[in-house]
């Protein structure tokens, strides 16, 4: 009932031309069970239109400090809401991933064979080519430069530093899941496919991987707009003590 009342009041407030004595007659006819509330709402609405919705010149300077405090309190509330939503999304993603992983392997009552889990990505660029997507087009679709794409393909970028948005764009371009791309990034670094080396010693891969954002800054092939867009992406949070690089 309370929710229904709130919906009616919100619809009334949003209706054209807005709450008034004329509109009130129409709305109380439509919702007689809320006549009292609609009437009180209209009275207060009109009171505010003549009082609080008019900014008095004398008040502006006097209330600046008070308003700043309200803004700070409000921002604290906003941050709590934001991170609460993020945490809920992540928890839901974990539950969904667990549920689908279990669903893929759990025994069926009728003895049917569980459907196979998603095949691992063999190589970002290779898998894209198998799907008919040339490297340049792949880089463009994923919002990256060719240089960055190759580094990601060789897993030379620290997986914990790769923004979620980049993983999602790669997955979207490949037509694969984000978890498959994440799993790929966590494997050890590799040489570029098909490259031959001539050296007196066996070539070695770097012992530490680049930070994604540092790699973006060093990439001279990126135009300024794209670089700024990538650098503005939020850095993924790494839980403490996980040992992730």
């Amino acid at each position, binding site marked *: 009932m309370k929710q229904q009342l*709130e*919906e*009616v*009041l*919100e619809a009334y407030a*949003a209706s054209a031309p807005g709450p*008034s*004595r004329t509109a009130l*007659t129409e709305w*109380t006819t439509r919702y007689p069970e809320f006549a*009292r*509330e609609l*009437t*009180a*709402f*209209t*009275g*207060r*609405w*009109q*009171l*505010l239109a*003549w*009082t*609080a*919705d*008019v*900014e*008095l*010149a*004398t*008040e502006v300077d006097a*209330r600046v400090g008070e*308003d700043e*405090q*309200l*803004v700070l*309190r*409000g*921002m604290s509330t*906003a*941050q709590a*809401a*934001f*991170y*609460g*939503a*993020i945490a809920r*999304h992540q928890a839901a993603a974990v539950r969904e991933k667990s549920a689908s992983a279990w669903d893929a392997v759990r025994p069926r009552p009728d003895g049917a064979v569980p459907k196979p889990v998603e095949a691992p990505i063999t190589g970002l660029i290779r898998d894209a080519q198998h799907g008919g997507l040339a490297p340049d087009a792949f880089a*463009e679709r*994923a*919002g990256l430069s060719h240089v960055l794409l190759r580094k990601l393909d060789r897993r030379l970028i620290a997986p914990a530093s790769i923004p979620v*948005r980049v993983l999602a*764009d790669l997955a979207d371009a490949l037509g694969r899941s984000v978890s498959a791309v994440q799993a790929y990034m966590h494997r050890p670094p590799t040489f570029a496919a098909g490259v031959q080396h001539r050296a007196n010693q066996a070539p070695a891969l770097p012992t530490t991987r680049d930070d994604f954002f540092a790699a973006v800054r060093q990439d001279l092939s990126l135009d300024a707009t*794209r670089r*700024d*867009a990538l650098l*503005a*992406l*939020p850095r993924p949070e790494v839980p403490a003590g996980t040992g992730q690089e």
Partner: protein
Amino acid sequence: MVSGGKRMLASPLTRSTRAGVPYRRPPAVEAQLLDVLATSEAESARRAGIADRSSPEALRDECLVHLARLAVRDGDAERFTLATGTLLRRCVGRMRRRFRSLGVAPDEVGDLCQAVVQQLMAAIVAEDGGADGYEVCFGRVLKCRVLNVFDAYERRQQRVDACDRLSDPLGDDETDDGTTREETLGGGEDVALSAERRMVIAEALGAIVDERHREAFVLRHLEDWPIGPRDATRPTISGRFDVEPRTITNWLKAAERDLAEWRAARGSAHA
């Protein structure tokens, strides 16, 4: 915002009115959203940080809500903070004045403002389209929230109906006392609705001590509500407060006394 060469489009609204009509952003909001989403993130952020609505590059409140919702979808705390910070700087002053005008004590205004902000932020981060209304008409939906929060506050406070204190008849009841809006407010001045005139009216109304008297005065003299009867099929002031018409008449007389004092004080201040 251009991200990786891809243009972002404004997501459609998903909610409908009670009549089943889908929510639609006004054309001006849609146009501004398309414009800002086509720019770089840096430019979008710059415009989202402009709190002064009168600036030609300022984004509408409805657009800021949409940008905040996009930031939640992308997990971008910085963009979310920017958009919601601008929204708050724009609306807290008005929320505060509204609660004070409704009679909330100064030391309780902050908590009520927080309650409204909580509802706003919960709607923005929710995935059920709860913020769709804010993208259609932010101002009206926020005002509606203020009144809902005040209503809950008033019920919690369990205010004593003070009409008993004013139930002694002081004059004719159930009839208009014959004063006009002009005579009551400004001593015969023409009540033009210019911004300056509205400021004077607002200042005068602020001099009426009791918020019920103030509301009754607004409804009678500025919105032309009839005083009675109490049980009516059409809206009346006595029906609004559920008191006898003579009580309303007494309230209006009390309001007039407050206004007379205000005029006298104003007159001596300008002497």
